[in-house]
């Protein structure tokens, strides 16, 4: 019987295992160092905040794996011998494979700051990090977070939930402005401050200061300011974890290099999820995409290949979501941080500063390119279809009420969005449709 060995039990590795099981009778072994069971890394913050326990983050019950004949080994893979088709594990010895999937995820990116190894400094990716953050932040008064991205803002929310004073160092002009257009970035910055976070924009980290016991006592910012604190959270992004690949001679650049079939240079060895770098990314997609669903899709894809149907990685239009404290964010398609000349944009923000949409379309063809939404839930299906159809912005705006995915009785902003659009682009009038009162009549 063919043996599939998967290294890494994150969403990528586990999805591959599940789908290989559905399609084949192969022996499947999943090796992971961090935890025996698959857990949801995206829920890390909720464990810290006490919304959930670790056990709640496990998407499948513990006996699921045995029922589905997926063997789990908690161990660290040290080396791959791709000629002998063998993996060396730290504790459990060698394991032969016919197919090997590398799904080793990512690691926090540190930038060799002075003091980054002090006690009280931590990234936020793994369970070990969570444990560290927990112990470093017990009964402390003040923390500094470095790096204004999605993980940084989660860490800020976590610490604020325990009433720890937070100073948040962000290099950009507004929060996450390397990704978000200025309007949204400004709105979120404002919201961050509403949550009593001391947000320092256009500020980086110079070095971390320690005391004689090796414990953090403060930071020096790029502006030369001294801020005392007992904890420093480093959230300046994540890097693909290529340690094992590099140690085994599997080509890696930023990530482990794979072709469109997720194959590495060596036959039978694949890389998926956060750790993979696409040599030729699909149009509109990046070479390294470190999000949950891309890991899942790569897992589904590699499973098809291993089951005998060689399949290329073909994600549809980009989408993603996040939550900034109380403001939910969804994005479909492409909304660049700076709108280039050939595109038009339309931005609407509610006066309460908690709801906004930002749509982008082509100046010439009027083709819809993408949308950011804040505080309003939209149907993925609606925009996925519009993007696949290369729909016109007018049709997207006209049917916008169909896209709404907010809970019942929520205030529907569609009409005021459409009116604002008509004002901004009088040539492309859309007719607001009266929505049923409370969804009833």
């Amino acid at each position, binding site marked *: 019987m063919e043996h599939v060995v998967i290294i890494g039990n994150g969403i990528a590795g586990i999805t591959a295992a599940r789908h290989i099981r559905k399609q084949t009778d192969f022996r499947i072994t999943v090796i992971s160092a961090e935890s025996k069971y698959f857990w949801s890394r995206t*829920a890390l913050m909720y464990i810290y905040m*006490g919304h959930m326990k670790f056990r709640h983050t496990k998407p499948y019950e513990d006996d699921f794996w045995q029922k589905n004949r997926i063997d789990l080994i908690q161990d660290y893979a040290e080396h791959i011998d791709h000629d002998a088709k063998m993996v060396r594990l730290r504790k459990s010895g060698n394991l032969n494979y016919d197919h090997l999937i590398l799904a080793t995820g990512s690691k926090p990116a540190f930038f060799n700051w002075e003091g980054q190894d002090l006690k009280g400094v931590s990234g936020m990716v793994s369970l070990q990090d969570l444990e560290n953050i927990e112990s470093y932040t017990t009964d402390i008064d003040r923390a500094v977070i470095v790096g204004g991205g999605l993980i940084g803002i989660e860490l800020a929310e976590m610490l604020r939930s325990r009433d720890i004073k937070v100073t948040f160092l962000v290099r950009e002009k507004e929060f996450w402005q390397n990704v978000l257009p200025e309007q949204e970035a400004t709105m979120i910055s404002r919201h961050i401050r509403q949550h009593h976070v001391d947000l320092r924009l256009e500020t980086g980290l110079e070095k971390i200061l320690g005391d004689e016991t090796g414990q953090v006592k403060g930071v020096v910012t790029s502006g030369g300011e001294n801020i005392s604190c007992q904890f420093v959270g480093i959230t300046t992004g994540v890097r693909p974890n290529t340690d094992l690949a590099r140690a085994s001679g599997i080509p890696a650049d930023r990530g482990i290099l794979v072709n469109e079939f997720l194959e590495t240079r060596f036959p039978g060895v694949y890389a998926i999820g956060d750790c993979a770098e696409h040599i030729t990314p699909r149009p509109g997609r990046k070479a390294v995409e470190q999000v949950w669903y891309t890991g899942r899709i790569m897992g589904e894809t590699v499973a098809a290949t291993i089951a005998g149907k060689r*399949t290329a990685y073909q994600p549809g239009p980009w989408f993603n979501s996040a939550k900034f404290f109380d403001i939910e964010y969804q994005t479909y398609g492409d909304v660049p941080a700076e709108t280039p000349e050939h595109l038009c944009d339309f931005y609407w923000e509610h006066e309460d500063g908690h709801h906004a949409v930002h749509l982008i379309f082509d100046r010439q063809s009027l083709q819809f390119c993408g949308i950011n939404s804040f505080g309003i839930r939209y149907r993925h299906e609606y925009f996925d279809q519009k993007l696949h159809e290369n729909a016109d912005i007018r049709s997207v705006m006209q049917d916008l009420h169909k896209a709404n995915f907010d809970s019942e009785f929520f205030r529907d902003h569609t009409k005021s969005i459409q009116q604002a659009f008509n004002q901004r682009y009088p040539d492309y009038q859309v007719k607001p449709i009266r929505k049923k009162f409370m969804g009833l009549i």
Partner: protein
Amino acid sequence: MYMHFLQKTGLLLFILACAILIGLLFWDTSYRITRETFSGVSSDEATQERLQMVFDSVPSATFHDPFSFNQMLKEKFGEYNKEVIRTFAITQEELDRIIAAFPPADVTFSPTVTESVWQDGDTDNFKREQFTAYTSWMEGKSYSSRDELQKQLNKTRQDINQGIRENKGFGDYQIKSLQLALTRNALTGPTTSRTTFWLFLTIGLGTAAALLYILPKLNLLPGIKNDGVYHRSNTSRGWVAIIIGSLLILFYIVLYWYPEYMVSWMALTDPLSRSLSGNPASQWFFYGLLYTLAIAVMGIRMLIHYRHSNYHIIRTISVIFFQTVFAFLIPEILIRLNRPSMDLKNIWPLNYTFFYDYNLEQLTSAGVIGTSMLVWGIVLAFIGVPVLTYFYGKRWYCSWVCGCGGLAETLGDPYRHLSDKSLKAWKIERWMIHGVLVFAVVMTLGVLYTYFTGSGSVAGISTYSVRSVYGFLIGAAFAGVVGVGFYPFMGSRVWCRFGCPLAAWLGLVQRFKSRFRITTNGGQCISCGNCSTYCEMGIDVRWYAQRGQNIVRSSCVGCGVCSSVCPRGVLKLENKKEAGRLNNPVLIGNDGVKISG
């Protein structure tokens, strides 16, 4: 800081109010039997006379706690019953004399022989009457020997003597209710002398203190704030939870089985009860008041907690309204108007006494109003339930209208995450809840059979005992003690999930014929688990969400919290066309492999 100070003060005052309330059961109370105590306790004249005899001899001693007082009552009733049996029981000797009057063989029974055994006089007359009544069916029957007859009559004697307590003395059930009535009348204490003062210092203070704890939460920005739920002892099965759970369980045990020990509390709410129904407060009035306040006050907490969501705001106002007006006020007002009292939104089989003989008799003898109520109740159960559930799912009832659901959604909300999400729990749930539904239907059919035919048993099983087993096991032990007492251990919907026969009935409709479902949003789920964790019904919502499958489950009460706690906007409760409800799982995002499942 300021906020914490207010909250701490609120908490302390609340504990104080509870302590005073419990203290009032014992502190400075006295119980004394006087003529007034038992006058008018029973509407039955014979009982009233007997009471006179029982308590005439009691020295006007005063008791200072309900326990010794009730001990005394039980002893007095016991003594009286002993005396009754001594006087009225047919003795072996009497029986022997009767039998001796018959020939040794070929006996033909006739009750006239008793003339020689019992002459005139009250006692003898009574014994004769009993004997004649119990043996009338034997008249003219032949027995091969005296021994044969003796066997039969021995049994008859036992039956007669067993009934005597009920006939001439006090039956167990009657003692229980007399204990309550007498204790209630015998009480003097703070709650009878300064009722309003103590009402304010207990229930009033408790309400104010709870609000003092709750209102400062307005200071938090609107949004999901489940911070610390698993850090707090109260909400993570810690020692606080054990104390609260135990107190709740104890309360329900006293309420259902030992109400005579909570008469001080009833007295506390007397003025209120009199102003509503005109009657003194029963234990049920006190309970109803507390229940309604719990829903209202914790409802305010809900309104604040979820003030960013109109769905929760509207449905919380709805449960507060239905509890206050339909469950609490209208039934009291109906009593005042001399009409049958009924909670008009309490539907059979949750309202399992609806088809009981006494209820049917009450309704059918109350004119147009009574008949309308009867029709209303039947229409609601058999037409209202399927039709409304078809359009809106069972949520129209379970999380918008129902009283049990109302309490779960308000008082129980802080405990919602404690429900078990395992497959095993789901399996147990399906067996249990449908089992209770079958039990409720069978019990009710039995009761109706008895009502229409007058025969008290079906296939040798007494319909009365079936119904009393149901009342004890399901109506009291499950719905009350477990249903609410287990909030801090098994979450807020233990009863609704495992025990409520109406939920089972609504659930069957919801599962097989309804427009309601929870839809999932393309490929946005990140499997974080918030939805499953905060599902009070123990549905593993994530299982469906992460594979892009609509959630169609009979147990879903449509509270909408999964949708609210989802950080990625994945879930939406919807009533849509039936088609496509039970969809194949689809996740959007992968254009290469079409995944099903």
